[in-house]
């Protein structure tokens, strides 16, 4: 009990010398790894008295946001949807920059891929994807609904992380998975699946990953937030210019096969970008969808659908890119 109390207090006191950035094992977020690999995070933040920058890995967005709710993260590379359900529940944070759009793929077991003709073929199948509240879950659900299939009753959506899903499809405990790169390509390389759809065809230009900053950082340390955005822009430009090297950095950090990662970058319909404005439209659509899914609860809490200013704070980005 004493340890718990101390632990809770410890986080609220003291000077800021460590920054913790959350991220996920996806090629969507290579920018975070590029900056870490080149030492840019610590270099660029040293002038603000930051001595340590820690990167914390999460299997998917919802657990990452849970950690941010607990105050464990100041910044997060995360899909644009998870922060929304967290903000509805009281997360004090804003999207400050973009990271990428599209870039998730539907992978079917090889024996089922031959007979795939479109969303209709998914009826009655068991599909592993990220948990409710994630981009993947939201995009897939919306796409199924648009095609007349009820995601709650006519398919069996199972929540899991990327490596669980890769194992599951290999062990045939699921029939299909819908995951962000590079896992779909890894599954194909292992002979356990065939990519049949990219998320860009399901929902063109849909927002995917973004950079989130805690409200505290925005209010108390805007200069640090500004620098984080600057470093992020630099890393994003770098990875766009040097995709081969980006793949190598990712493979090194994740212990993945370099050739497979390079393949993944070649086939993925993902589009790296640091501009948050490109994410706004689809993100507001996510806010709508998530509100719908939890209408009873949110209305009971007196909430309304989140608007742009509830989710985004692009002032610092706009200043930097004027």
């Amino acid at each position: 009990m004493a340890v718990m109390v101390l632990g809770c207090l410890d986080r609220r006191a003291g000077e800021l010398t460590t920054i913790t950035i959350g991220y996920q094992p996806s090629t969507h977020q290579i920018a975070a790894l590029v900056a870490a690999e080149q030492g840019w995070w610590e270099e660029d933040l040293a002038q603000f008295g930051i001595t340590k920058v820690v990167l914390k890995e999460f299997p998917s967005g919802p657990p990452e946001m849970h950690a941010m709710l607990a105050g464990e993260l100041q910044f997060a590379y995360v899909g644009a949807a998870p922060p929304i359900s967290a903000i509805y529940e009281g997360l004090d944070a804003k999207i400050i920059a973009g990271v990428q759009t599209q870039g998730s793929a539907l992978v079917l077991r090889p024996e089922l891929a031959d007979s795939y003709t479109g969303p209709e073929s998914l009826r009655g199948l068991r599909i592993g994807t990220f948990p409710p509240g994630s981009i993947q879950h939201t995009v897939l659900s919306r796409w199924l609904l648009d095609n007349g299939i009820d995601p709650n009753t006519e398919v069996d959506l199972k929540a899991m992380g990327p490596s669980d899903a890769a194992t599951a499809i290999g062990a045939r405990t699921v029939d299909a998975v819908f995951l962000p790169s590079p896992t779909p390509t890894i599954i194909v390389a292992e002979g356990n699946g065939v990519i049949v759809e990219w998320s860009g065809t399901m929902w063109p230009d849909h927002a995917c990953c973004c950079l989130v900053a805690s409200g505290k950082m925005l209010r108390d340390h805007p200069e640090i937030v500004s620098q984080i955005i600057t470093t992020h822009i630099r890393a994003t430009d770098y990875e766009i210019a040097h995709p081969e090297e980006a793949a190598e950095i990712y493979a090194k950090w994740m212990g993945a096969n370099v050739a497979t990662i390079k393949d993944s970058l070649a086939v993925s319909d993902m589009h790296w970008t640091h501009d948050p404005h490109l994410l706004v439209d689809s993100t507001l659509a996510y806010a709508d969808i998530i509100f719908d899914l939890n209408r009873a609860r949110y209305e009971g809490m007196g909430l309304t659908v989140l608007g742009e200013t509830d989710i985004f704070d692009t002032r610092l980005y706009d200043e930097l890119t004027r």
Partner: protein
Amino acid sequence: MKLTAVIRENGLSLLPLILVLLLWEVTAGYVVKDPLFLPRFSAVMSAIYTLRNLLVPDLLTSLYHFAIGLTLAFALALPLAIAMGWFRPVFKAVDPIIEIVRPIPPLAWIPLAIVWIGLNDYAAGFIIFIGAFFPILIDSYSGFRDVPRVLVETGMVLGCIGDRKLIRHVALPYALPSIATGTRVGMGVGWMCVVAAEMFGVGDSGLGYRLFQKFYFLHQMDYVIAYMLVLGLLALVLDRMFRYFVEERLFRWKKGIVK
């Protein structure tokens, strides 16, 4: 008149409980004031009401997983316990394996369970089985092993010739209280595994499933605590029911109470 007697009788048990709930409500509502960090007790209570349509199917599913696991555990543990407790060579042969496998936490079996059995109710039942099996086994074989020699020999001189008759008429009745104790402990451990078993999405409902696959990912903390309370209460009910139906009735002789 009767009410004051009831209060006096149970006051010592109930008063601290009520105080804790009050403390929770006040701390959550006026000190912490953050429904994410600590939802109010009243919020949790109304959450139980709000969730009532989900709660009942989830409860039944969890009980179903529990039943699968416990039945399997009992069915496998009892014969093995008889063999291990009665026949020393069997014990010596099997015990090392048991002692190595036993300390492995049920949660650690989840990845295997998913690959072996799949994402279905039986995988969940399997995890609960792992939790319940060892307490039942160990208490039971201890019961069989500890049968006093004088009782065995008495059985023999009264006509129980052979292991089967001795086990049936002497060892089993003697070991029954130990089996009951082991089962009760196994039930406790098994129920604790329900959440672990369900959190990985084996199945589409269940208290653990809902808690981890929905409430957690959507950060709905009042729902989380509501389900935690239900899990705890259900465990209490199961335990009390077992004690009443099995221990009170069957083992009157241990306490020397006569009808």
